């Protein structure tokens, strides 16, 4: 039976967002007996909504409310109103993610200390270490069913396309070539089946072999009776009292009516565009620059990843579509080694796109047409593709701001997502393009295409954590420095982006944050 909480119940944790951060937090709190309401902006989704159809699922699950791309990045040129490719609905972007579950490396928590000041970048250390986070990484890996040593689940078998890249990498002397860790069941686990290699992972997993909060955390939280997940509930503003404590969240329900949900504490987990947007939209006379923004860091330091694609036409058939979307990872270049001409590192992740997506993303610019483009697509069966996932340095000027005049369907200012690549990103991408192209040529590639990035699915940094209140929005627990019953529970808290996909770290931090909240509530300090 679905629990319904009263709008005037001020004893609840109100969580905004139901993805990796919000969904995990809701279930962790529910398992501890702590009651919460999750406000999810999008509709309720279930396993039955998932089909193997790239564009149909893109339209069904994507966050398509208007956003404006600004700055000198690919988003401005190629995706002027769709800077980010994330999900709006029950489960959030865990429906869309491909399952890559890498931990951050030790150096990625202290990039400022290791590299000193990097001109033009706002590099910062994390207020916590890999050692502190490791037990939570292990908890996250068990929760999500990540292949690897924590669970003992073997990595998935190598599909054709990964075999192509891996052999090219091996011939170039690369050694760190693995088909995991993935939060995709290689064997039946946790009531979910083993992967049957349907592919279409980014459209949502057809059988539930891939972890998502849609099929695990959210229904389990609801089953406790301690959690209500309210869909089609778009958070508009967080309210506070005269003492500066947050008291309620205003949201628009599915009928467009404004509701006020009272709260004991509020956890914001709307992804790195919507979370700072909500804090900025919650400005008041007490917090004129936005809620929890005395540091001025809300909305700043926006990072995606240093991301790009390399696709190659091989001399024999590959059928890259036969299996998981991201089937393997090469990590030899993930180290921090400035002798290569750039700080930080990158990974290479094999990436399968179907023909419908590839027809756009092979060249997403206006120039993506013509004889050469059509002839390339005719060679689909011979193609293999790789995604470059590199650390993107934070820059204070990259970020989320509010449009001065244009508003969305709720009357809220449309977010402007500004990003200009740092020279470090340009140099790293050049290295990665070159190395990846060489890998493909080492196994006989007849043609190699360098692709610009897709709309960003990895969005980070816009409510950065810092030990000092003057340097960040939240502390190492994700708790706002300025507002003691306000938390941020998503990737917007990351001070650095790393060369790892963000989901595992978001989940680990959410597990850790749930413990902190439970402890503080028990101690009477929340």
């Amino acid at each position: 039976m679905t629990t319904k909480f009263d709008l005037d119940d001020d004893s609840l944790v109100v969580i905004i967002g139901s993805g990796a951060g919000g969904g995990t937090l809701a279930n962790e709190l529910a398992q501890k007996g702590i009651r919460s309401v999750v406000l999810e902006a999008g509709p309720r989704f279930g396993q039955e909504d998932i089909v193997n159809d790239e564009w149909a699922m893109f339209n069904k699950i994507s966050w398509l409310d208007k956003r404006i791309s600004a700055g000198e990045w690919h988003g401005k040129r190629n995706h002027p109103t769709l800077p980010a490719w994330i999900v709006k609905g029950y489960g959030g972007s865990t429906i869309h993610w491909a399952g890559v579950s890498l931990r951050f490396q030790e150096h990625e928590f202290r990039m400022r200390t290791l590299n000193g000041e990097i001109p033009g970048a706002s590099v910062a250390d994390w207020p916590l270490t890999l050692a502190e986070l490791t037990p939570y990484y292990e908890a996250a890996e068990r929760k999500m069913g990540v292949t690897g040593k924590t669970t003992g689940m073997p990595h998935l078998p190598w599909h054709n396309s990964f075999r192509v890249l891996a052999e090219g990498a091996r011939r170039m002397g690369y050694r760190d070539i693995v088909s995991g860790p993935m939060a995709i069941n290689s064997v039946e686990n946790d009531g979910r089946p083993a992967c049957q290699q349907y592919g279409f992972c980014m459209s949502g997993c057809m059988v539930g072999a891939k972890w998502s909060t849609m099929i695990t955390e959210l229904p389990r939280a609801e089953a406790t009776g301690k959690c209500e997940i309210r869909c089609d509930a778009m958070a508009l503003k967080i309210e506070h009292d005269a003492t500066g404590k947050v008291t309620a969240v205003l949201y628009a329900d599915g009928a467009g009516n404004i509701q006020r949900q009272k709260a004991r504490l509020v956890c914001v987990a709307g992804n790195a565009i919507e979370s700072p947007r909500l804090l900025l939209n919650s400005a008041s006379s007490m917090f004129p620059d936005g809620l929890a923004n005395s540091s001025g860091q809300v909305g700043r330091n926006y990072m995606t990843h240093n991301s790009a694609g390399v696709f190659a036409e091989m001399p024999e058939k590959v059928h890259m579509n036969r299996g998981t979307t991201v089937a393997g990872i090469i990590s030899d270049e993930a180290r921090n080694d400035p002798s290569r001409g750039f700080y930080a590192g990158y990974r290479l992740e094999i990436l399968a796109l179907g023909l419908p997506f590839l027809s756009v993303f092979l060249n997403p610019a206006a120039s993506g047409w013509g004889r050469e483009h059509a002839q390339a697509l005719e060679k689909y069966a011979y193609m293999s593709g790789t995604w470059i996932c590199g650390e993107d340095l934070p820059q204070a000027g990259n970020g989320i701001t509010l449009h001065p005049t244009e508003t969305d369907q709720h009357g809220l200012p449309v977010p402007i997502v500004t990003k200009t690549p740092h020279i470090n990103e340009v140099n790293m991408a050049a290295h990665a393009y070159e190395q990846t192209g060489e890998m493909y040529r080492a196994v006989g590639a007849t043609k190699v295409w360098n692709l610009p990035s897709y709309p960003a699915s990895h969005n980070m940094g816009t409510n950065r954590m810092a030990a000092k209140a003057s340097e960040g929005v939240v502390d190492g627990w994700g708790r706002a420095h300025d507002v003691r019953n306000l938390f941020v529970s998503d990737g917007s808290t990351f001070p650095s982006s790393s060369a790892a996909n963000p989901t595992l770290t978001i989940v680990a931090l959410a597990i850790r944050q749930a413990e902190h909240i439970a402890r503080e509530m028990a101690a009477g300090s929340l």
Partner: protein
Amino acid sequence: MSPDLRAEARPRPARRLSRRHFLITTAVATGGAVAGLALPVAAWANDTIGTARAETMLRVMRDTFPHGPQIVSLATYQRLVDAMLEEAAADEAVKMLLSDGVDDLDARARAAFGLPFTEVTEDYAREGILRGIETTPFFQKFRWAGVFGIYNAPDLWPALGYEGPASDVGGFLHAGFSDIDWLPPGPSPEELLAQVQR
């Protein structure tokens, strides 16, 4: 600003031609021959923006994503143009966009080669003219029509080498998974298990 993914990928109301309309247009176009074979395009009548403009649109559509007839038939390209013309018949703004766009294209072709666009015989020359207008809403309409009408059309996938989903056979694990024989195999199940031992 050129139309982008967010705007273009949204589902549209069905503009599928009625079967009758389709038969009429293809019968006219082919002079009664089998649709998809070499058609005398000149015989294709359209009264929305005029037959000559419709023919130019067909040439643009083919030049946008040119494939041989064994991969994408002329009838397929024509269906994409027909769908645009049907939209134009119901929407004055679309009609203006297409009509003005074709006239502009012809003016550019005449300026460069002294010929209307369809009479410029070299493929690269037509592509060159189109490159000059590729960021316009007029041209991007053809691009997105091709993206969805060609590469997202399951009946065209086999000829393009794409297999689509394997949901009918329970996943690619049961349909050619890891079957290439021109490179070494990946790790064995035992090796994969050994990798995760503590």
